[in-house]
């Protein structure tokens, strides 16, 4: 719990909130029709989390990642994952080179992972071996090869995408790796109105150049401000209860959870929710996290962390539905009022 003087004052929060607002404006201006998605992506960035995009080809996943890189003035690289992609292709490799003195030595050639923003396109097409190569980079932000650990440039984000169709020949991401993604965001098709704007306003779909870019120092301010967003105790308790309730058999688990969930969300999920909720609060210009911030990010955080059983598959139950149901059922404040007593906004 932060000290009394660590809670942000309005004048301290305002620059960061302004930066976030500007970033969001740029995103919304460049990529049309995905305001809510943009907010979550920005929250993920501010929370220094990795994001897994899931959507059909051509919906603008790469464009989004590229635009973020441009706005944040961060280095951006893309890897198209294929079954024959090797870990060295991602992490880098040692190459025998002759120096100017004529001596031969192994020189490390960094892979595309050495960047600020890595777009791992169709990550589920790579073999498990290659996928696992991403584990250390995503969690530790470093790469260890031949006993040498090399830190990745900061900030480091993996923005991966996977195609929900054409699943033949793919390797579904293991739970351990899925758990490392802060969000799993679904890319859905935009409506006709947006499509019309895209067609009429952008020749060959070329994206406009950002009119404003965030400086590195400004990004640091954003990260520092994020760290000072206050998480009240009732809210943290709510997050803990929410994550705990995803475990079948727990005290507050709902009937659908007990019926459909094999394994609930991990403690990393609780941390992710707390961080994402901070980002949501900052985006809304508040120095403290409220229950609504948690609700806004909970589904994106947990929808890839619940392991459902076969019964859920038979009943077409999804993790997203379960989380929504849980958010509706669980009393945020833990007042435990009797069922016949209700609170209502005046």
């Amino acid at each position, binding site marked *: 719990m932060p000290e009394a003087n660590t809670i942000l004052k309005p004048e301290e929060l305002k620059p960061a909130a302004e930066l976030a607002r500007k970033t969001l404006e740029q995103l919304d201006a460049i990529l049309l029709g995905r305001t809510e998605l943009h907010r979550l992506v920005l929250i993920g960035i501010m929370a220094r989390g990795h994001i897994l995009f899931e959507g059909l080809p051509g919906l603008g996943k790469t464009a989004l990642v590229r635009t973020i890189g441009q706005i944040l003035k961060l280095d951006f690289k893309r890897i198209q994952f294929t079954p024959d992609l090797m870990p060295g292709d991602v992490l880098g490799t040692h190459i025998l080179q002759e120096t100017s003195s004529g001596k031969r030595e192994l020189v490390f050639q960094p892979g595309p992972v050495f960047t600020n923003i890595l777009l791992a396109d169709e990550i589920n097409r790579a073999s498990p071996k290659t996928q696992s190569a991403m584990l250390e980079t995503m969690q530790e932000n470093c790469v260890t090869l031949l006993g040498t650990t090399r830190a990745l440039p900061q900030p480091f984000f993996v923005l991966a995408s996977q195609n929900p169709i054409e699943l033949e020949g793919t390797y579904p991401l293991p739970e351990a790796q899925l758990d490392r993604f802060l969000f799993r965001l679904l890319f859905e098709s935009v409506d006709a109105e947006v499509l019309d704007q895209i067609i009429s306003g952008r020749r060959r779909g070329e994206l406009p150049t950002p009119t404003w870019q965030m400086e590195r120092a400004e990004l640091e301010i954003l990260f520092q401000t994020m760290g000072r967003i*206050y998480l*009240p105790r009732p*809210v943290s308790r709510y997050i803990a209860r929410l994550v705990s309730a995803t475990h079948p058999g727990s005290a507050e688990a709902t009937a659908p959870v007990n019926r459909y969930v094999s394994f609930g969300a991990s403690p990393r999920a609780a941390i992710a929710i707390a961080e994402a909720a901070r980002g949501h609060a900052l985006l*809304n210009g508040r*120095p403290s996290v409220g229950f609504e911030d948690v609700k806004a990010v909970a589904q994106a955080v947990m929808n890839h962390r619940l392991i459902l059983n076969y019964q859920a598959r038979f009943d077409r139950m999804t993790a997203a539905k379960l989380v929504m149901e849980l958010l509706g059922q669980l009393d945020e404040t*833990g007042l435990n009022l009797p069922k016949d*007593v*209700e*609170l209502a906004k005046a």
Partner: protein
Amino acid sequence: MMTTHSHALQIFARKLAWLLMLRRAVRWMSAWFFVCGVLILAARIAGTPSLKWLALGILMCVPLAIFAALWERRRLPAFNKIRASYDHLEKCGGLLMAEETAEMSAWHAQLPAASVPGLRWAGSRSLLVLFVAALFVAVTMLLPERLTHLGHRSLEVGKIVDQLQAEVQTLAQEKIIDDKKSDDLQKQLAQLQKDASGYNPDKTWEALDHIKQSDSDLAKQAAEEAVQKTESLTEAETLAQAMQQAADEGMTAATASQAAQDLESLLNAAKLEEGVLNGKIPPELLANLNGLNKEQMEKLVKAMESNKNSLGQTLGDLAKLKMIDPAMLAKLGDAGKKGNSDELAAYLAQCQGGNCDSEILFSWLRHKGGGRGGPGAEMTWDNDTSEKDLKFQEHALPPATQLDAAQLVGVSKAAPELSANDIATGHGALDNAAASGGSAHAQAILPEQKQAVQNFFKRDNQ
């Protein structure tokens, strides 16, 4: 602004506390009313006489409600949870929650306008239950008694009670019991009929049997008394009539005086004014029995007749209710039959100088003068016992030697002498007769026996 939110938060917390306490109190009161109702109903069905304490128990709902509210007060949610709820409901975005840690006055401007969140209690069901519970208690208290005794199998004693009430009424009418006792018995009977239960009939039957036995005893006592009084009155009446006749035939004054004394003793023996059945002879007549003229004597006879009729009427009423044995009524009839006063009048007339024997007089009155067993009754004999076809066992007589050894003391030709001791005071011809010694028993022969004795000695002539 913050002050306003703080104030609104306080109001909200207070409202929530009151609502929860009220809700708890309503629930406990409902439960208490149901418990009270069940207890009262059970008590009434069980026939508990006093429901006062149970009714007072209903008033316990007030302290119970207070206790429930206090109990709920201790279980109220923590204030930080209430603040979190307020923050959430008012969409304060955690700013109010952060206030517990830091000074947030700089953010007041960012907060929405303060308002006290609403509290909705779906209490209609709880209040309905409370209403039903209160109604239940009221119904259990006001339920008619006949409905609370549905489980009782009443004991049908109406017929017996009616009969006993009639008996008591008759006893009271005949003055066998006084009015107070009659009222008590009627009340007892009414209460017994009311309390009669098929579950415990012994008590009722025993009580009814006791009253019936008591009535029967009184009736029996009255009947016996009536018979006795009637008997005495009949004797007195016969004597009075004989005295009237004898006076006409020249009864001496001495004999009249003696007869009047006997009449008085007979009336005294009747004890008309004692016992359960009271009769009365005019006292002016009783005071001067010796000097009654003919009219007064007739008046006396009528008074005795009236008393006898009254006694007969009483016994008749008792017999109608089967309170006495019908034989007792017949006995009364026998007791009321007068003897032939002519012979007694003749006897009184022949007595000279007041030498009439009272014992003879009373005996005659007891036997109602001549009759089948009186002195004038004819004697009859049956045929001799036939010895035909009878076989007698022969016994050898003892040898005569013993007779030879007997000693003749002497033969007296004179009449035996009687000493005073030889006159028997008791009955029986051979009483006090000595086996030897030359004495003989002499028995005084009563007038009524005289004719029988004479008939005995004249039998050969018949």
